[in-house]
């Protein structure tokens, strides 16, 4: 009898718990899609970077040539909104008498006072939501402390060691005779507000005979990053908008099951966007609803030159992301290795 009672209780608990577990936080069901990686997932699309994917990507390393794909973070670079990034150098060891031991060892270190979404940086799953509903229907309000998020933080990431694909929209637009550049760019660039469509991305891929595959990281070269390089001279122009994929292209990229989408722009998506009443609509499509990371302010010009020279748009994507607990994103260093 007792066994029957325990079994009945267990069955009841499971029956009640299972639907809630399967459906995510009920309050978020209407705003955010369930994760393609299961109801408990906090990782997102780096789940796609399997050993087989990394191994296949390693085949891209043919010359051992590393091409920098991140901008130097320095005072004066454009920062979104009220963001700041400052360093304070501790160098007292260099003062007279500050050296250690007979061998006179000295040291220096830094205090980095910075917001995480600065310079070339990764948007994590905890970065963007609809209301308080985030990736995998997570009702984020339950997981916020004064210092960090207790769910969806960067510590849940897996590796980004996968194949990178550079999509050179500048060259594609030039080939289609539809490039409308901005006078402030010293190299060809798409102008702000230019909506990059799925057809544009497909056209650019076709120029290098590249087919996206699951687990890729797509990096879009718009030329707009040239304005970042000119900092601080063109910060106002750089910040006033940007070219980028619109919603249709974002949905297509999500359908390709990529791991991340990056660009040489501060927000990756077209701004002003297609509907002035919406805010950053591509972000929730990629991050919130599909778990696909966004990488902003990627330096793309060097890789674009390399791709134009060789006709090969793929490379081994090497990016390190500090796994600090509870972060929504972080400054990253990227090299494209060929």
């Amino acid at each position, binding site marked *: 009898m007792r066994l029957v009672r325990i079994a009945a209780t267990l069955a009841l608990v499971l029956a009640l718990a299972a639907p809630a577990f399967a459906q995510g936080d009920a309050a978020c069901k209407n705003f955010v899609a369930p994760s393609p990686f299961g109801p408990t997932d906090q990782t997102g699309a780096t789940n796609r970077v399997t050993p087989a994917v990394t191994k296949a990507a390693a085949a891209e390393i043919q010359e051992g040539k590393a091409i920098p794909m991140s901008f130097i973070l320095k005072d004066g670079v*454009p*920062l*979104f*909104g*009220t963001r700041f990034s400052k360093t304070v150098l501790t160098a007292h060891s260099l003062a007279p008498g500050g050296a250690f031991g007979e061998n006179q060892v000295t040291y220096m270190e830094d205090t980095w006072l910075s917001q995480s979404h600065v310079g070339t940086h990764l948007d994590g799953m905890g970065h963007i939501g609809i209301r308080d509903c985030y990736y995998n229907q997570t009702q984020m309000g339950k997981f916020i402390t004064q210092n960090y998020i207790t769910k969806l933080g960067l510590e849940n990431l897996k590796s980004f060691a996968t194949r990178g694909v550079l999509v050179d929209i500048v060259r594609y637009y030039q080939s289609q005779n539809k490039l409308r550049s901005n006078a402030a760019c010293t190299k060809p660039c798409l102008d702000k*507000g230019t*909506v990059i469509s799925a057809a544009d991305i497909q056209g650019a891929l076709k120029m290098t005979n590249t087919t996206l595959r699951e687990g890729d990281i797509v990096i879009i070269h718009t030329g707009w990053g040239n304005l970042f390089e000119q900092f601080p001279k063109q*910060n*106002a122009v*750089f*910040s*006033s*908008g940007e070219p980028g994929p*619109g919603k249709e292209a974002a949905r297509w990229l999500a359908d390709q099951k990529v791991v991340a989408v990056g660009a040489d722009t*501060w927000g990756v998506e077209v*701004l*002003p*966007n*297609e*509907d*002035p*009443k*919406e*805010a*950053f609509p591509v972000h929730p499509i990629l991050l919130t609803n599909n778990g696909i990371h966004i990488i902003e302010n990627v330096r793309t010009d060097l890789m674009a030159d390399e791709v134009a020279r060789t006709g090969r748009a793929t490379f081994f994507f090497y990016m390190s992301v500090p796994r600090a607990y509870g972060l929504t994103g972080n400054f990253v260093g990227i090299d494209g290795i060929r």
Partner: protein
Amino acid sequence: MKRVAALAICGLVAGAAVALAAPGPRYRIGFANLTDDPGTKIEATGFTGDLVRESFVLAVRELPVDLVLYDNHGDPHRAIANAETAVRDHVDLFIEYNDDPSANASVAAIMTKAGIPVLAINYPVPGAPLYTADDGEAGRIAGEALAESAVRDWDGHPLLGLIVGDWQRGAARLDARAAGVRAGLTRRLKTLRIVKIAPADLGRVASGNPGAKLLVATMSDPLALAAKQTLEAAGRAGDAVIVGQGLDPSIHGGQSDRREIDPNNRGSIVFGSVAFYLDRYGYEVLPLALAVLRGERVPARTATRHVLVTASTVWREYPPTDLQ
């Protein structure tokens, strides 16, 4: 029931998406702007004509439309010449934004002869559907907001309504706006004394009515900002609330560009502005133009949906899209 409504909306959205995706005819639409001059404020607001033009350039991105742009330069002769050029440019439809009735009559004649349909903005063109601001409604919204504020915060205090405008500029529009403000104020405050004054008189009037709480409706946002300064200088800022008209870029900004109406500035005595959305005309007018071209029925008059925008709603109405 909600579910049925949601499904119906989904159906409509899906239908729209299919319509957008389906290959259909591509149209050539001419738009003659009142003026492209970034230094000229238009419609007695803080908006400039270049923002109207830009809204068309942005709105057309996702539409099956090739836009041909003309600048009327605020000049009736130029407006007529532009209409003639548009005929030679073989536009399928012509959008006219010109404030001279006589020139608009000529434009109508030119286009009728050429068999080209016309859409008019803010000023009628004979026989053409009109998209227009509704100054009376915008004024009413401001007046009601001020009255509600007074009822909520200053119940029992002596009140004075002030309508502040540069009355020489765009007189007809401003008169309609002022009448709307008066109607909005008196709907709840039936015995309120209301005075229509010039900006230069505000300080004197405020100082001359030391016991009254001041409900200030300005006819534009630049005037709202100036009124705030005047009231501060007169030591009356604590006894006043202000609502502007326009919600132009002088009064709201983005993430970095903090301006008066901003989520982080909720205590301002300029507590709101009535949005005119001149910088979204393209998004409103081009769909009407496409409807005309598809032979659909278009209302003879379509008015802007004015709303009061406050520090609490400004980023919903105008999501920041830049770092400025």
